[in-house]
C-alpha cells in the first residue's frame, strides 16, 4: 500500500472512510458528548491529538519491538497500554497548561482511553500495512473525521431541541437514527479513493 500518498489517506480518512460514519467506531462517546457543540469540539480536539500521537507511537512499538520478536499477537494489549499511558500524559499536560479546557472536558478526557476509534486507528494501520507517514496521516485524518462527525451531530442535536420528536425516539434513539442518515449521506463519497 505504499503507493498511496499520505495526503490522499488524510483526505480519505476524513471523508470517504470516516472512522465513525463508515466503521461506526467510537460510538459511545459520540453519543454521550454530542449534546453541545463546544464540548463536542473540545473532545474532538483531544481525540485528534491522542489519535495522531498514539498511531505514531504504536507504529514504532509494533514495527520495532513486536515484529522483530515475533510477538505481533500481543498488539492488542500493548496498544491499549500505550493509549492509556498517553491519555494520562495528555491529561496531566492539559491540567497544567489549560485549566479551562481541562474543566470543560472533565470526565471525558480520561474516557478517551476507552474510545474504540483510537484503538481502531492503530489496528487499521497494521491491517492495511501503512508506512509511518501514512499511519500518522491516517491517525490525524481519522481524528479530524471523528471530530467532524461529532460536531455535525452536536449541531443537529442542538437544533433538535426545538423539534417535536416522538416520545419513544427522544434522546439516544433519534441520535442513532440521525447518525445512520448522516452515514448514508457520507456514503456518497465512498469509492472515490481506495485506501485499503
Amino acid at each position: 500500500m505504499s503507493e498511496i500518498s499520505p495526503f490522499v489517506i488524510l483526505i480519505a480518512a476524513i471523508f470517504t472512510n470516516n472512522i465513525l460514519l463508515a466503521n461506526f467506531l467510537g460510538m459511545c462517546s459520540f453519543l454521550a458528548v454530542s449534546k453541545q457543540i463546544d464540548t463536542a469540539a473540545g473532545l474532538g480536539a483531544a481525540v485528534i491529538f491522542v489519535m495522531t500521537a498514539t498511531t505514531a507511537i504504536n507504529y514504532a512499538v509494533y514495527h520495532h519491538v513486536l515484529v522483530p520478536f515475533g510477538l505481533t499477537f500481543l498488539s492488542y494489549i500493548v496498544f491499549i497500554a500505550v493509549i492509556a499511558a498517553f491519555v494520562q500524559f495528555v491529561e496531566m499536560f492539559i491540567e497544567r497548561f489549560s485549566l479551562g479546557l481541562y474543566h470543560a472536558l472533565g470526565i471525558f478526557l480520561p474516557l478517551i482511553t476507552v474510545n474504540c476509534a483510537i484503538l481502531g486507528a492503530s489496528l487499521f494501520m497494521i491491517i492495511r500495512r501503512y508506512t509511518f507517514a501514512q499511519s500518522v496521516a491516517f491517525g490525524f485524518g481519522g481524528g479530524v473525521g471523528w471530530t467532524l462527525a461529532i460536531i455535525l451531530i452536536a449541531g443537529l442535536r442542538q437544533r433538535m431541541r426545538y423539534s417535536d420528536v416522538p416520545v419513544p425516539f427522544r434522546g439516544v434513539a433519534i441520535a442513532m437514527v440521525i447518525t445512520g442518515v448522516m452515514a448514508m449521506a457520507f456514503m456518497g463519497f465512498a469509492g472515490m479513493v481506495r485506501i485499503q
Partner: protein
Amino acid sequence: MIFLLPILIFGGLLVGLTVALTIAERVLVNYGVCKIDINAGEREIEVDGGQSLLSALNESKVYIPSACGGRGSCGHCKATVLEGGGPVLPTETPFLTRAQVRAGVRLACQVKVREDIRIKIPEELLNVKMFTAVVERAELLTHDMVELRFKLEEPAEISQRPGQYVQLQAPSPEGPVYRAYSISSSAHDTGAVELVVRLVPGGIGSTYCHALKEGDPVIFTGPYGEFRLDEDPDVDVILIGGGSGMAPLRNLLLTVLERWPDRKCQLFFGCRTTQDVFYFDEFRKIAEKHPNFEVHYALSDPIEEGESWDGETGFIHLSAEQHLDESDRKRQAFLCGPPPMIEAVMKVLEAKGLESDDMFYDEF
C-alpha cells in the same frame, strides 16, 4: 523462552511507560507554593500545590471533619470556596444541594489546590485540634456497647461544649479513616475523653473501638458539633435518646449538673430489651443527689419471662409525652437516636410547646 519473551517485552514496556509517566508527573504536576486564605484573612497558610484542599488544610493543622479519608464518599468535608478551585466536579454533585453549589460549597477532598484559594469555614473549625491519647479504660457496658476512656497526652486538655463529637482515627485496608463519636464525659473533665460505642457488625470504626485495650494509643481530632446548651440556669433541659445515642446526652447531663446542681433536667432513654440497658443505675444514683433531675428508661420490646424490670415500657416518645408538661417555660431539648424516633419525639415536643429553635438533634 517462548513464554518468557512476551512477559518480558510487555512487562518492560509497562515499566517504561510508568517511568515516563512518573517523570512527567514530577515535571508537570508541580504548582509550587500556593496560599490558602481562610475566613477573609483570619488565617493564611502556605501549602504545596497539587494536593487536595483537605490534605493541605490537615497539613497546616486545620481539621475539617471527614469520615472516608478523602475518597469523596462521605460528603462531610464541606467548605465554601470563594475563589480559585475550579468548577464543581461530578464526584461532588451528589452531596451538594443547588443552593450550596450556588454559594460555592465544595467537598474539600475533591478540590485540588492549583492556585491561591480563598475559603470560608465555620469559625469553630479553626479551634479543632488533633489529639494523641492512650486508652485508660475499656469496659463493656452491654453485649454490644463499650465505654472507652482516653487519657489525653498531646495536647493535654480539651475544651468542648457538651454534645460535641470527635473524629477517631481507625485503620482500614485503604489507609486511615475517621469516624465520628460523641463525647460522653463531662465538659469539666478536661483531661480525658470518654466515648460510648455500639458494635456494628462489619463496621470499621466500631470494630476498632471494641478491639481497643488499656494502654493502646489513639489519635482523634475535635471537638466538632452544633449543639449549643443555653447558659441560663432557668432554662430546663430535656434529653431524649435511644439506641446508640447515649453519649452526648450523658455529656450534657453531667456538665449541667456539675455546673448548676439544681437545674431542672429530664432524661428519657429508649432501649429494646433489658440486655440493652446501661447507665440506668448510675443515673438513679445521680437522681438521688439532684432532686430536680429525673430519669426515665423505657423498653420497646415485651419483657420476657423471668426478667425483672422496674422501668417503663413502650416507645420512648410515649414516655416523654406522659412525663413532660405543657408550659410556657423556656426549655431546651437535645435528641439523639434513630431517625424515626427523632421524628416521633419532635412531634411530641411541638405539642408540648417547644420551639423548633430549641430542639437540637443528631441522627444515629
